[in-house]
């Protein structure tokens, strides 16, 4: 496992460097911050002093070297907009986004498992058609529209929840309800499709013929094998939320990292933008590892040990081999075919 993690970290280093360099370069292509931070009638002297104060008078490679050096000290500099430490601003906003993303995904996954499984029990039945309509609608509704309608119905007309804000448990209702729709709709369709495939496999017939209860057939056999594609899609959806649910954070005044990033881009607040992007990039890297570990839990064949066992078996069968050997882990990606899954746990 340590070898696996080490390889993943090394493999992720290059993309992280690309992200770090990319955000540095792209941020500076948006223009000179002095145009936004100084009054429009600021004199040349004032503009020069502003550039010197913020290190913008240095050659670009010097600025980049200082930026890289700062990363190793976890010093991203100071926000031009607020005068606060950029890393602290990003770290303060990130937990709020993580909480929102985790809550949303847990609810979406649980609901999708229930609705998707129920729909798959009788393909093209009334329940299946209803769930298909609901899930496609949920996956298609724009966040912005849903949020505004939600405020109008639940906060203004019914008065049961606050319009926005973060104070009290009721404040979670509208942001989560708005965010949960798209993951729920997408996951229902994925899980429903995977369950339909799984339920037609021979091992399900075998389980039923052995007298297993319907609950056990679905929960222990079919759902376990149908979960892998669901996990893939859920992972992608979670990554999107961890990046910041900008629309929802903006409308509901949720102090998350998505809104902070957008504000930093609009205000050319380079230090905060760089801190936010690096933090989310690292978080997404960690999330991907967790998703891989989730696969390992679901399917023994994708575990690192499984790959090693297979290689040992192959060597034993073929005798000593020479030359290069594929030392990478067994595939941990999402491409599990239904036929592979059907052999997974049985």
């Amino acid at each position: 496992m340590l070898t696996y993690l080490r390889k993943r970290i090394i493999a992720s280093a290059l993309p992280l460097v690309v992200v770090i360099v990319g955000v540095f370069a792209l941020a500076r292509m948006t223009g000179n911050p002095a145009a936004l931070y100084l009054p429009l009638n600021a004199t040349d002297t004032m503009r020069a002093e502003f550039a010197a104060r913020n290190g913008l008078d240095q050659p670009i490679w010097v600025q980049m070297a200082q930026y890289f050096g700062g990363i190793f000290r976890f010093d991203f500099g100071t926000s031009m907009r607020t005068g606060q430490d950029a890393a602290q601003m990003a770290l303060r906003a990130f937990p709020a986004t993580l909480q929102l993303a985790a809550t949303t995904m847990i609810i979406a996954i649980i609901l999708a498992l229930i609705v998707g499984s129920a729909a798959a029990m009788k393909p093209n039945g009334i329940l299946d058609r209803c769930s298909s309509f609901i899930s496609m609608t949920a996956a298609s509704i724009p966040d912005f529209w849903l949020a505004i309608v939600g405020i109008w119905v639940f906060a203004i007309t019914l008065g049961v929840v606050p319009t926005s804000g973060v104070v009290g448990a009721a404040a979670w209702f509208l942001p989560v309800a708005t965010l949960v729709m798209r993951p729920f709709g997408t996951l229902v369709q994925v899980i429903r499709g995977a369950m339909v495939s799984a339920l037609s496999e021979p091992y399900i017939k075998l389980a039923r013929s052995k007298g297993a209860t319907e609950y056990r057939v679905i929960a222990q056999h079919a759902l376990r094998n149908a979960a892998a594609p669901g996990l893939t899609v859920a992972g992608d959806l979670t990554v999107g939320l961890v990046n910041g649910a900008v629309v929802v954070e903006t409308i509901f005044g949720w102090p998350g990292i998505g809104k902070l990033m957008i504000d930093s881009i609009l205000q050319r607040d380079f230090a905060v933008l760089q801190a936010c992007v690096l933090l989310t990039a690292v978080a997404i890297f960690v999330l991907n590892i967790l998703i891989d570990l989730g696969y390992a839990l679901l399917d023994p064949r994708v575990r690192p040990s499984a790959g090693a066992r297979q290689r040992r078996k192959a060597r034993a069968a073929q005798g000593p081999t020479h030359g290069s050997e594929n030392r990478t882990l067994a595939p941990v990606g999402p491409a599990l075919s239904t036929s592979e899954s059907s052999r997974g746990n049985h």
Partner: protein
Amino acid sequence: MLLVTPRSRRIPLALAASALLGTTALSGCSVANSEDAAGGSSAPSDTLRVVLQQEPPTLEACESNLTSTGVVIRSTITEPLVERNPTSGELEPKLATQWSSKDDQTWTLKLREGVKFHDGSDFNADDAIATIDRAVNSKLGCNVEGYVFGDDDLKLKKVDDYTIEVTAAKKDPILPLRLSFLEVVPKETSTTEKVREPIGTGPYQIEDWQAGQSINVAAFADYWGEAPAYSKANYQWRSEGSVRAAMITSGEADIATGLSPEDNIGDLGVSYPNNETVALRMHADTAPFDDIRIRRAVNYAIDKESIVASLYAGRDKAAAQLVPSGVVGHSDDLPVWEFNLDKAKELVAEAKADGTDVSAPINLVVRTAQFPKIQELAQVIQEQLTQAGLTVNLKMLETSQHLTYQVRPFPTKDDGAIMLMTQHGNQAGDAAFTVDQYMTSKGAQSAFGTPELDELIAQADAASGDDRQAAFEKVFKYQNDEVVQFAHIAHQTGMLGISSSVAYEPNSSSGDELRLAEVTAAK
């Protein structure tokens, strides 16, 4: 190594599920770093709840000319020496009780006695001098320095504990007005770093600032003036206008800033003149704007009265100059260009006959979402100018791109003549803050000028009293008659959402300086 037997496989799954559900349960209690602020719907009635468009980036006193900062601190947390009455335009005493000058260059200010800062220290001449020195003469890079004072430093002298002398680099008849932009802080305030949460002398002091969520302030017990009606106030911010309006209608907030009728605020929306003026700036370096007849034709071709009536429901007012009523230099007698499409066509035809390339493309440069219905306004103008025989392309740009057109140096290689839609706000109350930037030959936001107009502006800048008013009126008339850099569209209005539980009458400064001490409970 994550090796589990088939039977024990359920344990980590169960653990993971429990952990996730635990997270959810915890999430239901509170958002990270949040505390139970007083801004909820159950806030006590002695708390005034205000919802702003955005979180202030800082509450630093020397950045108070930034709208998002000034709306919170000016005359609420901190106070200036002199304060401009937004309705009458007159300067009124605040921390200075008297001011006078014999030569318009050296000004003597008598300071108020018995004033305390929120930290308990007494206010005196040292604090007043330190405040001016810090904001204007230091290397701190205060926004107010660039906005109001420029590169010239001020000479400061303490006469006694409650009298100071301020000397400008040259004659400055409006120096007290400039000083009204400076919010007073104690002499101990850092001169090398900006301060996010200032200590002031205002009727409210900062209690806590939960970054990203809210600011709470409490009435200052030792305030020198009349105690405010509310003992506490809570600021929150929402970017979306419809959400701010919903907070008023649902009773979650008492005052909301930056609304428009489209936000469904209904009868709780109160409009007020906000000192903003919309105009088109024509760059005369390229055809067809190098011919003054075309610039006049643009003015004749735009039906300003219909625009105001149809797009802005009659709240705005057709404009003849860049400053609205209430600003020194504005003239009610200056006529709005009449809408006369025939006259516009005639001028275009004349120019064409004399060799002007009237078919040359004109780029109407507009900032996306700068104010309500800006895109519709741009489309109407495009259509009306097309009817006059001009070729107009609409360029909708985001803020940073738009700024490259707004301030010198302007783009020189555009694919057409530039016509910039600009929104100018004069919150200072004196036309000098407008014309120096927008009308002089080298002004930061002026596309061109003439030596004659520059001379008129210089004379107006040096004048005082009634002469100053007359001199600036002359400047605006000369621009309309002889220069025609601008086609003025409308003086705008802002809108506040005010709940039925509070009483507050907005004025032209309310969007930049919401004085909480002027808000009372509705009777």
